Every structure is written in structure tokens, then in C-alpha cells.
């Protein structure tokens, strides 16, 4: 079936049998909640969709409903995610395994609608598990997998599934829809360990006012998050048996004999893979490692796949202003203690605000890896094509003239 990334996300809620969907519109996410609203109305989905007055109340209601025992699904983007950010820390602390879809969109100011990952990566420290999708099929499958992992009694943490705005949210791709029966086998009904029950009154969201106790809880959440990696791998094995599609926390692409590797996530992976294929045709030993799971960060897998390569570029579609890419230092840290770590770890920043990246640019990154090997401290690459730079300069010039 042909469908957009947003539709695939809505199917994730439907096949995952979400009970409750608090909602608030924001571009480019709105199609998800509208689709679910339509299905609920037609009786095709047995759930309650309620539009709230803001993302903050939406996420609060979502976390609370999850605690009360419902399987919860909601979706937002960009400013909406950041407005709700304080609730994300609370919801993970409540151990409420709800599902949040983020349709990536760059943050204001300046205001824009197109994607980069500063929004979703602002949530990286919240305790939410994080999965990033490259294709529409992956959006749907990762939602089912993420529910399964989040609700596992050894994890019990909420999850974010990220898809890129526009590039994936509005792009139609072929998606195989699993049967309801198969999904129920893979993802049984949510059975909350400590729901609100009349015969067992519990209080949630306690105050500790005690550093040791606070640290204990945070450490417990941290180890639970780390555990999510092996829980995911186990669930993925069953997923493959039932649905025939295989997912690992990282996806190696033409990596067997690759000497020069790009580390990337989300929709630009498709462009980078094309560059890898083209380089391979010319005999250049390129490879790609796609990060599918961002939290917990799959350090051991990253280290295993990247050790003994000659050079690696980390493509960050985000920027921590004053530092650089956000993923880069995490990859570097994963490799530091490996004796056979790559000679070069090249930081690359591109695609901010949805700036298009061409296959040629991706190829240039690989050339840069090769050329920079041996450099003492490689200069970070900030991708911008010559014609883009010219157009931008012209626009700035025009804006200046209009001002007078």
C-alpha cells in the first residue's frame, strides 16, 4: 500500500491498538492526528482522540493516561516538542511507557517548517527511548517495536519514534501492512505493572528531596534504558520471524570491506546510500552505518562496526551551537578505548532547516575522509553548495535593499 510517513505513523497507532490519543495540531505532523480522528469516527479504530489546548497539556495527559493503564499514542513536531519538554522528563520518571511520534522540524528562530534534528535531540536526555526512521515502512515497524520495548517490564520507559518532516512525512512509499492478528501476537495488550486500581491505591510522581534517593532513581532509569538495547534486539528477532523484516539498533550498509564510512540517521541515509553505491562502482571502498536507535545509544555496536576502518565521517543534521554536531562526540566516545579505532573521525554538519543534500555532496564527504586522513585535527565540514551560498547571499543583499 502506498502511504506517507505520517499515514504510516497513524497505522502504527491503529495496529498497535492505542487506546487514547491526546492531540494538538502542528505542521508537519497534523496529518497523523487527523487520520486517526477520521478512523475513530468511522469506527475503524477503537480509541479516544481528544484535542487539547497545547502540546504541554497534551503530553501531560498522555503520560498520566499511560500511568492509569492505557496504551497511549501522540504526535508532535519541533516547537511543540520543546514546549512539552519539561513533561518528557516527568513522564519517563513516572515510568509511563507511552509513544510519542516526532515529525522532525527545525527550531525557531528563524522560523521554518523543514526538518533537522535539533528538536528531537533536545529530548535525548529525557529518558525517552529514541528511534529514528529512514523509510515509511520503518516508521510503522519501529512504532510496533518501540511499544514492545517500552512496555517491557524490565524497561518501562516512554519512547519517541522520529521521522523527518516533508522528506518522509509527506512522501509516499510502499508500505506492507501487517495483519492485526500478527501484530497482537507480537505486541500483546498493555498490561501495566502498577496501574490505578480500586483495590490497590498507589501514589505516583513522588517528591524525594534527597540527593541519594534521586540519584538512585536516575541510575535505575539509566540502567533500564541501557537494557532497552538487548530487549530491542530480542524483540526484533521475533519481529523478523513474524513479519519477515529485520531491524537492528544500527544498520550496516556495504560495510563488509568498507574502509571509509559515513555514520548517519533518518531520511538522508537514502541519499548517502546512493553515494555509497556510486562510489563502489568506481572501486572506492565506501560504507555506511545508519543509527536507528539513538537512545539508548548503541555504543558497543557502533564501536564494533567502526573499529579498524580507515576513516569515518559523522553526519549530524543538527548543531549544538558553540560545540558542533550532537552525535559526533557520542561516536567518538564509543570508539576512544578501541585500540584499532579509525585514524580519522570527521565531523560533518548538513541539512539544517531541511537544506537539501545531493548525492554529489555525500560523495564529497567520502573524498574528504580520504583526504583528511593524517590531519592533526580535521576541520569540521559545514555543507553548503556554491549555488546555495550565492542564492543566500543574494537574498540577504535584497533584504538589505528593501529595508531602505
Amino acid at each position, binding site marked *: 500500500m502506498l502511504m506517507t510517513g505520517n499515514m504510516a505513523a497513524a497505522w502504527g497507532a491503529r495496529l498497535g491498538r492505542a487506546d487514547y490519543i491526546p492531540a494538538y495540531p502542528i505542521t508537519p505532523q*497534523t496529518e497523523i492526528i487527523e487520520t486517526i480522528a477520521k478512523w475513530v469516527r468511522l469506527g475503524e479504530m477503537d480509541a479516544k482522540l481528544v484535542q487539547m489546548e497545547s502540546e504541554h497539556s497534551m503530553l501531560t495527559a498522555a503520560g498520566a493516561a499511560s500511568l492509569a493503564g492505557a496504551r497511549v499514542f501522540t504526535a508532535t513536531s519541533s516547537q511543540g516538542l520543546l514546549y512539552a519538554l519539561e513533561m518528557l522528563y516527568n513522564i519517563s520518571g513516572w515510568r509511563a511507557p507511552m509513544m510519542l511520534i516526532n515529525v522532525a522540524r527545525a527550531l525557531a528562530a528563524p522560523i521554518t517548517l523543514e526538518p533537522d534534528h535539533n528538536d528531537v535531540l533536545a529530548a535525548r536526555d529525557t529518558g525517552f527511548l529514541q528511534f529514528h526512521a529512514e523509510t515509511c515502512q520503518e516508521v510503522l515497524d519501529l512504532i510496533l517495536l518501540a511499544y514492545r520495548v517500552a512496555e517491557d517490564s524490565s524497561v518501562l520507559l516512554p519512547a519517541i519514534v522520529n521521522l523527518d518532516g516533508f522528506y518522509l512525512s509527506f512522501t509516499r512509499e510502499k508500505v506492507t501492512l501487517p495483519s492485526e492478528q500478527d501484530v497482537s501476537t507480537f505486541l500483546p495488550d498493555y498490561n501495566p505493572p502498577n496501574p490505578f486500581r480500586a483495590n490497590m491505591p498507589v501514589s505516583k510522581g513522588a517528591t524525594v528531596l534527597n540527593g541519594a534517593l534521586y540519584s538512585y532513581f536516575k541510575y535505575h532509569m539509566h540502567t533500564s534504558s541501557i537494557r532497552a538495547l538487548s530487549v530491542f534486539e530480542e524483540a526484533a528477532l521475533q519481529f523478523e520471524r513474524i513479519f519477515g523484516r529485520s531491524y537492528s539498533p544500527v544498520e550496516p550498509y556495504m560495510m563488509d570491506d568498507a574502509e571509509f564510512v559515513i555514520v548517519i540517521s533518518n531520511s538522508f541515509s537514502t541519499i548517502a546510500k546512493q553515494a555509497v553505491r556510486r562510489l563502489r562502482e568506481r572501486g572506492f571502498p565506501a560504507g555506511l552505518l545508519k543509527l536507528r536507535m539513538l537512545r539508548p545509544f548503541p555504543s558497543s555496536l557502533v564501536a564494533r562496526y567502526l573499529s579498524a576502518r580507515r576513516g569515518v565521517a559523522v553526519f549530524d543534521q543538527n548543531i549544538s551551537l558553540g560545540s558542533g554536531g550532537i552525535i559526533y562526540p557520542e561516536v567518538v566516545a564509543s570508539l576512544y578505548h578501541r585500540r584499532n579505532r579509525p585514524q580519522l573521525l570527521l565531523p560533518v554538519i548538513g541539512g539544517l532547516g531541511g537544506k537539501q543534500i545531493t548525492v554529489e555532496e555525500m560523495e564529497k564527504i567520502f573524498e574528504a575522509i580520504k583526504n583528511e586522513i593524517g590531519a592533526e585535527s580535521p576541520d569540521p565540514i559545514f555543507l553548503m553548495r556554491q549555488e546555495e551560498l550565492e542564492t543566500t547571499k543574494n537574498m540577504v543583499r535584497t533584504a538589505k535593499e528593501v529595508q531602505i
Partner: protein
Amino acid sequence: MPLLNPKPFESDTRADWCPGCGDFGVLAALKDALQKSGRQPHEVVVVSGIGCSSNLPGYIRTYGFHGLHGRPVPVAVGIKNANPKLLVIATAGDGDEYGIGFNHVVHAARRNDDIKLIVMNNEIYGLTTGQLSPTSKLGQKTKTSPDGSIIYPLKPLPTILGAGGTFIARTFSGDPKHMSWVIQEAIKHRGFALVDAISPCVTWHNIYDEVKKLFYRLEDRGYKPDDENEAYKAMNAQDGIPIGIFYRREDKQSFQERLAEINGGRWAADNVKSLGSEIAQSLVQEML
């Protein structure tokens, strides 16, 4: 050049709202009202949030600020507190001001901040193409309420009256002269002014005909906006859609006036050096 310009608030940028959108009427009325109030573009700041209506500051020749969804009021208050000589007007929609950012409106009314808030109310989220808004009617079918809304709409005007609002009015983009007059009065007002501007969305929730049929001018009926209880009654009228000034009192000091008594009339913007002729010359050179 503004002094020689017959239409000082006219911008070169053409508004890209849908043809027939009520927001065109609000933009025209605001420009007219500013000109009639004798203001110059450099004395005015127009701030907005996110939404169709919030594109307005881009279409008017004043200082402008396109902010965050729900936050035009705190942006306006911040500017006003730094430089109270500026006329600060916030323009946004019902999603911004009656929904996600309504708490700011309540507190600006309570403080009687000397800002003017024009809410383009169309009972729908237009920019995201047709979802439930805080002023959507009971039973209104939208993309997120396909069975009809089961939520009672907010009544912003009596809520703001209860919060201590000192100027509360409603107007309609289908009555441009009235709208310009209401905005002129809001500009004259000492303190916080809320102008609920009915501005129909012709694409997702067209209420033009309905409002045209039902609206009447309060002033045509000899209504005097000086009594709080009468204002509540007028706001809750069941015999149509009243437009006009429901409530107005000028005896309450604005927050900035009270602040001036404490800070001795010194403001942050006083420290901003005015443009000396040398700097001005160099700026002109740079721009040429």
C-alpha cells in the same frame, strides 16, 4: 520619507492569505486606524505569534516581530516595558490567544499592560488546515472533531472582563469602518485593550454569511460601555452577535504608569543612544 508618504503603513509585501480571508480586512483597518491616530511607522511595533493571522507584521510598515505560537503578549509586554514610548500592538489568532497562550492574556489584562491585542477570531485552526479551536462551536465539525465538537467554546470577552480588563471590544472584518474605529479607540485607551476581531476563514470554516446576518452594532442601540454588569449581559447576548466596545474604563493606571512611579520614569530604552549624525551618515553609506 514617512512624513511625505500618503500611506505610511503600506508595505511592499503582498499578503498571501486566501482570497476573501477576513484577515485582509483586519490589516486594512489596522493601517487605517494607525494613520488616523496620527502615528508614524517608527513609533509602532506589531508583534504576532504563529498562524495565518500571525503573518500580519510582515504586511505592514512598522517595526515587526514574528514570535512563537501563543506568545505575542509576553513579547509585546517585554517591548513595552523596555520602551513605553512605543505603541505596541499584538496581532494573532484564536489558537494563539484563546488557546495555547491564553494565560498570558489573562495576566496582561490583570496588570493592565499598555498593549493592544487584536485577536483574529475565526473559530478554527487555519494554518494547519482546519482543526478544532478554543472558540469552535459545540457540534462544529473539524478535522479533529469529525463527529462535531463536544467541547464548549471559550468565552474570551467575559473571561478577560473578569480578569480585570479595561477595554474589551469586538468587531467584524465585514464592517471595515467599524473595525478601524474600534482599533482607533483601543489605541487611545490607557492600558490593556482586547479587540476580538471576527475574521472568517473562507477556506476551512466560512462564517461570513452567518455573522453578516446576526451582527449588530452596540452603539446603534445606545449602549454605554461603562458598566461591568451591563457588559457581561451584552457579551452574553442571545439575540445576535453584538459588535462594539463592551467595556471601557480609563481611571485605572496602566502597569507601565505604575512602574514609572517606582522607577522614576527611567526605562531600559533610555540607555539606547540616539542615532548621531555620523552614525546615520555611515549607515546610509553602507546601505547605498
